[in-house]
């Protein structure tokens, strides 16, 4: 088996606060293989974005990586000096943010922003970089790229701007793209185009993609595997078909049950998970989900569940720890 493009091992991210360190990410592990799209879902504050930011080394103080390892194609990158990490950003790992309207510097032509990025990472002169900029715009589907290269960001629509952002992200052919809610700020019709674009780029270039979103539809359409995050931990991770159709973790079950279907009985109420996710300063003991879980038993309140393999899925839930249940019996 080849080395995964991104390998996150037992990652812990903490934010210093007046009342001590708040643990935003607590023991997250996952791999993304070449050409694979990993979807990361969860509620706001579950740690999805922070995981992405940690991977690209953009956690700002007071946050810091407090433990674990991040490996890029086998090379450890979480402890690299700032300058070495900067060279990796944009060249080997790219990141796309949520709002394309604010991701581009309004005072510079998009061509200049592309050329600047290209020349930072690739050994090209102005003319070559400009040609590449036009090619990139063509690749992400900007019409008349040789003219639009001289336009300013405000002269593009939201969807077109997100295409420009993607062109900037793939400028140096990165191995990994971290897309943090790339479609949330866009119209539904434009969302589909952007998703198709990301998917096509991943396929054509063998780029691994970490797709952070809270939109299960986007995940189901795009991802190969999906990780469900809850309160800074991965509750369940596995192939997207399995997790969507046969979720194991009670939280994942609730999440999937909350998606309305077109074919279902309209009179049937959607499943609702009672309560809300705990604040970082008040994460309950044991399984963080136990106060909201209808299956919780004593062990859930005392001991934190570690991931257990069930088929192709991994689930962090005591319900599936049959070995433990049997030995106790």
């Amino acid at each position, binding site marked *: 088996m080849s080395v995964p493009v991104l390998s996150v091992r037992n990652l812990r991210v903490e934010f210093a606060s007046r009342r001590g360190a708040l643990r935003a990410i607590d023991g997250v592990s996952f791999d993304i293989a070449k050409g694979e799209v990993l979807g990361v879902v969860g509620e706001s504050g579950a740690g999805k974005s922070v995981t992405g930011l940690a991977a690209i080394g953009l956690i700002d103080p007071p946050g810091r990586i407090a433990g674990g390892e991040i490996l890029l194609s086998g090379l450890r990158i979480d402890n690299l000096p700032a300058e070495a990490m*900067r*060279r990796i950003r944009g*060249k080997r790992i790219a990141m796309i943010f949520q*709002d394309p309207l604010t*991701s581009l510097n309004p*005072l*510079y032509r998009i061509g200049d922003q592309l050329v600047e990025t290209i020349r*930072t990472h690739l050994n090209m002169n102005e003319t070559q970089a400009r040609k590449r900029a036009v090619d990139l715009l063509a690749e992400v589907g900007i019409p008349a790229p040789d003219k639009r290269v001289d336009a300013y960001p405000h002269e593009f629509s939201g969807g077109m701007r997100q295409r420009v*952002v993607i062109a900037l*992200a793939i400028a140096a052919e990165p191995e990994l793209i971290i897309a943090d809610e790339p479609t949330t700020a866009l119209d539904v019709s434009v969302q589909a185009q952007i998703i198709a674009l990301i998917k096509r780029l991943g396929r054509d270039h063998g780029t691994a993609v970490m797709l952070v979103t809270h939109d299960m539809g986007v995940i189901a359409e795009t991802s190969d595997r999906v990780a469900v995050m809850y309160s800074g931990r991965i509750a369940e991770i596995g192939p997207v078909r399995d997790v969507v159709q046969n979720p194991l973790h009670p939280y994942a079950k609730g999440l999937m049950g909350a998606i309305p279907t077109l074919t279902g009985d309209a009179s049937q109420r959607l499943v609702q998970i009672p309560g809300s996710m705990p604040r970082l300063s008040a994460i309950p003991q044991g399984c963080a989900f136990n106060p909201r879980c209808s299956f919780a038993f004593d062990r859930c309140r005392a001991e934190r569940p570690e991931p257990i393999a069930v088929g192709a899925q991994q689930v962090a839930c005591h319900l599936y720890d049959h070995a433990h249940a049997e030995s106790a019996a």
Partner: protein
Amino acid sequence: MLAFILRRALQSIGVMIAVGIIAFTMFRFAGDPVNQMVAIDTTPAQRAEVRASLGLDDPVPVQFARYFINAVQFKFGVSYQFRQPVSALLKERMPATLELATCATVIAMVFGILMGIYSALRKDSFFAKVLQAVSLIGISLPTFLIGILLIYLFAVTLGWLPSFGRGDVVKFGWWTTGLLTISGLKALIMPSVTLGLFQMTLIMRLVRAEMLEVLRTDYIRFARARGLTTRAIHFGHALKNTLVPVITVAGLQFGSVIAFAIITETVFQWPGMGLLFVQAVQNVDIPIMAAYLLVVSLIFVTINLIVDILYTVVDPRLRATINRPA
């Protein structure tokens, strides 16, 4: 673009007409100028003669029209106290004020922007905190007090710099400059520091606040995610966005520097328009006061116009709105 400049120029002319009306009304409401010009023992007949020779008997609209037509040609009448044309007096004093104001603004801009950038990028460093604290003093201390403190320190105690006047000046046509002589430069230091200090601290605090704001924006985060060098991010992307609002403030500040110069010029006995104005106020020399008002307004309006044009040069979004008039 041309239409925009023309529209703004027309607006500026409107402002100037309004100021002209205010300047003119000063003649009507600030006492009888004849009393200022004549001696106590002048006979009523002589007074009437003076009044008629100054055109003060004509109807108000006629007087205003005359004043306006003259003002457009920079003829502001004769000073009551000096018995000289006001325009000649202003022309003689203007180089001193403009040199002082420009020098103060350059000091304020250069140091203000540099210190602002520094205290934004190293906001937790000791020196940046010192700058923040000291800048509060700069903002709150009145100009005349700073001037007097500087005079006490550098002129009285240390004796390094002259305490008043402009030093030796060199003449270029009607323009006089103190920039080319040692004594002129030495004389310029304290007044321009005094005058520029407030603007400098203001610009520093503005640049700092704006830059911190810009550094939090998404496009800076995205620039970092693209792996650009810190220098390119700070001085290419962040600084340019920071300077957009700074241009407006700095432009308007140049106007108020000229206005503030009244105090500084008084403290340092600087032979500029401000000092002339203060003398005019003491002697109710209305032609000078009115002309000063018009000249300062003209400078303000011109700077505003330049700032508006500069804005569109820096920010492409404004060019778009201008070319697509509502």
